[in-house]
C-alpha cells in the first residue's frame, strides 16, 4: 500500500550568512502492506509529519520515490489523493461552519454526489458517536468530538488508506482511549490500511500492528511492538525466594536463560527474551529444585526502553529537547 525509497526532504532556513540547510527527512525507506495498522513513532521534529506530507502529496520530496496505493506521489498525485484519507494535526473543518455541511462538501470534492455524501456522512456520524451534531459548529464541540469529526472528513469517500497525523494530541486521557477504539475500528469496519503518526508510546503500542521508529529524519527500527521489545532488552523477571540458600539456586536457574542478572536481598532479577515462553519452564525447574517462591513478577519493557536503546535518548527526553510543552500529554501512570 505504501512503498517509499530513499525519501529526502531538505528545507532552507534563515537568510544571508544565517542561511542553513535543514534535513527534515534523510533517506526514509518504508513499506506498508494492505490492511496493516502502522504506528509511525518519534519525538517532535523527528520527521514524522514531513514524511506524512510527502506521502499525502502535500510536499514534493527533495529526493527519493514513493508509491502510495499503487500510484507515484510525484507523477500521479491526483490518483494518490483520490485513494487516501488524511486527518491532519491542525484539523480540517472551519470552526464556524456546520459539521454536516463540512463533511458533505468534502465528499463532493472527491466527486461524490450530494445525496451519496449525505448518506455516507450520516453513517459515519453514527459510527463515530457524533449523532445529533450534524448541525453543530466545530467551535461548539469538545476536543474529542472535533477529532472524530476530522476522522469522518477523512473517511467520507471510503479511502483504502488513511493517514492520521497525531490524532489524539491535545485530548484528555478519556477522550484518547475513546478515539483509540474508533481508530481500531477503521480496519475492521472500513477495511482500511492505517498509517498513524504519534509521539505517544502507549498509543503506538495499543493501536499498531507494526511500529516504525523515526529519529532525526532516519528510520531506526521497524517491527511489531513485541519483537522490538524482545530484541532490545527482553522482559524483566523478578523472583523473590524465601531463604539465602534458595537465592543461589534461583540465580543459577535464572542465569541459565538470562543475560543480565542482579541480586538484591532475596530478589533475583534478570532480563529474559520472551518471558512468556521461558518462565513456565523456569518455574518448573525451581519447584523441582525445592525452591519456595514468595513472588514472581514479569515486567515487560516499554517502547521508551526500545527508543533509548536505539537512539541513546529517552523518547521523553527527546520530546523535552524539542521543546514540547503539551499539557495534555499522558502521565507516567497512563503510559505504563
Amino acid at each position: 500500500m505504501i512503498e517509499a525509497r530513499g525519501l529526502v526532504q531538505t528545507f532552507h532556513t534563515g537568510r544571508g550568512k544565517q542561511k542553513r540547510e535543514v534535513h527534515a527527512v534523510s533517506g526514509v525507506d518504508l513499506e506498508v502492506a494492505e490492511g496493516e495498522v502502522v504506528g509511525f513513532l518519534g519525538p517532535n521534529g523527528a520527521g514524522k509529519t514531513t514524511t506524512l506530507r510527502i506521502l499525502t502529496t502535500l510536499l514534493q520530496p527533495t529526493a527519493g520515490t514513493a508509491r502510495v496505493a499503487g500510484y507515484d506521489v510525484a507523477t500521479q498525485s491526483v490518483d494518490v489523493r483520490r485513494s487516501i484519507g488524511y486527518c491532519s494535526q491542525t484539523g480540517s473543518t472551519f470552526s464556524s461552519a456546520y459539521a454536516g455541511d463540512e463533511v458533505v462538501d468534502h465528499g463532493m470534492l472527491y466527486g461524490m454526489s450530494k445525496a451519496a455524501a449525505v448518506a455516507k456522512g450520516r453513517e459515519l456520524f453514527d459510527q463515530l458517536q457524533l449523532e445529533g451534531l450534524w448541525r453543530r459548529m466545530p467551535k461548539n464541540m469538545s476536543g474529542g468530538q472535533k477529532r472524530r469529526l476530522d476522522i469522518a472528513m477523512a473517511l467520507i469517500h471510503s479511502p483504502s488508506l488513511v493517514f492520521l497525523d497525531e490524532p489524539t494530541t491535545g485530548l484528555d486521557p478519556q477522550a484518547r482511549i475513546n478515539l483509540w477504539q474508533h481508530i481500531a475500528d477503521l480496519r475492521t469496519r472500513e477495511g482500511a490500511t492505517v498509517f498513524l503518526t504519534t509521539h505517544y508510546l502507549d498509543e503506538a503500542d495499543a493501536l499498531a500492528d507494526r511500529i516504525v521508529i523515526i529519529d532525526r529524519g532516519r528510520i531506526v527500527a521497524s517491527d511489531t511492538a513485541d519483537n522490538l521489545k524482545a530484541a532490545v532488552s527482553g522482559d524483566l523477571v523478578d523472583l523473590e525466594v524465601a531463604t539465602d540458600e534458595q537465592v543461589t539456586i534461583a540465580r543459577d536457574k535464572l542465569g541459565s536463560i538470562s543475560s543480565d542478572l542482579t541480586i538484591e536481598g532475596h530478589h533475583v532479577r534478570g532480563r529474559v527474551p520472551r518471558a512468556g515462553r521461558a518462565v513456565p519452564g523456569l518455574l518448573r525447574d525451581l519447584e523441582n529444585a525445592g525452591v519456595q517462591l514468595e513472588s514472581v513478577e514479569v515486567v515487560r519493557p516499554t517502547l521508551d526502553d526500545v527508543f533509548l536503546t536505539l537512539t541513546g535518548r529517552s523518547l521523553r527526553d527527546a520530546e523535552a529537547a524539542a521543546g514540547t510543552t503539551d499539557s495534555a500529554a499522558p502521565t507516567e501512570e497512563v503510559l505504563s
Partner: protein
Amino acid sequence: MTLFLRESWIVFNRQLRMNLRNPAWVIIGMLQPVLYLLLFGPLLRPVIEQLGGNQYTWFVPGMLVQLGIFGAFFAGFSLIGEWREGVIEAERVTPAHRSALLFGRLYRDLLQLLVQAVILVGLGLSLGMDASVGGIVVGVVLTLFLGGACAAASNALALTTKSEDVMAPIINVVMMPVLLLSGILLPMSFGAGWLERLSDFMPIRHVVDAVRGAFFGDFDSSMLWGVGWTFTLFGLAVWWGTAVFRKENS
C-alpha cells in the same frame, strides 16, 4: 473543464453559506462607500459644477472602483483563518483542481461585490446620478474584473504571508498611494501638473477613468487604456493566485 467548474462551484457554495451566516462583514464593507457617497458627495457639488454634470455621476464610478479594490483586498484575511484551522490543507489533499479552490472563493468575492455595486449604483441613481444603462453595465463589469484581480492577489498574499499582522500593513502601504493617485475622490486634473503626470503611472487611475468614462458615455482612448489595465491586472493576479494555491506547502 466540467470537473473544474463543478469543484469551484462546490467551494463557492461553501463560502457563500459561511458569508450568509455572518452577513455583518458584507454590510460593514458596504458602509464605507455609502458614507462617502452621502457625506462626501455633497461637498463635491461646487467642484464638479466647474466640469459640468451631476456630482454623483462623477463620484459613483470612483466609489465603485474603491469598493472593488478595498473590499476585495480584504478577502485574504478569511483565507488565513481557514488555513489556520487546517481547511486549506484538507482541501489540497482532495483530488480537486487546486485552481478551483481559488476560483470558488473568487466567485464569492465577485458576487458580494456585484451586490454591493448594485446597491451603490441604485443609491447614486436615487441621488440624481445621470448615466446610461449600458454605461453602468460596462462600469460595473470593469469593477468586477478589477475586484477579481484584487481578491486573487489578496488570497495569494494571504497564503504567502499566513499572518494578518504581516498582511495588514502590506495592504495599507499599497492602498494609500492607490487611493491618492488614482483620482477616486477628486479628479487628478485638479492637482499640480507633476501630480497628474505621476498618476499616469498608476494603473488604477486608468481604470477609474474608464469606469467614469463609461458612466458619462465617453468611449474614447482612455476607455481602451482602462480596459487594457483591468484585464492585465486580472490576468496577473489570477496567475499569481493560482500559482500560490498550486505551490507545495501552501
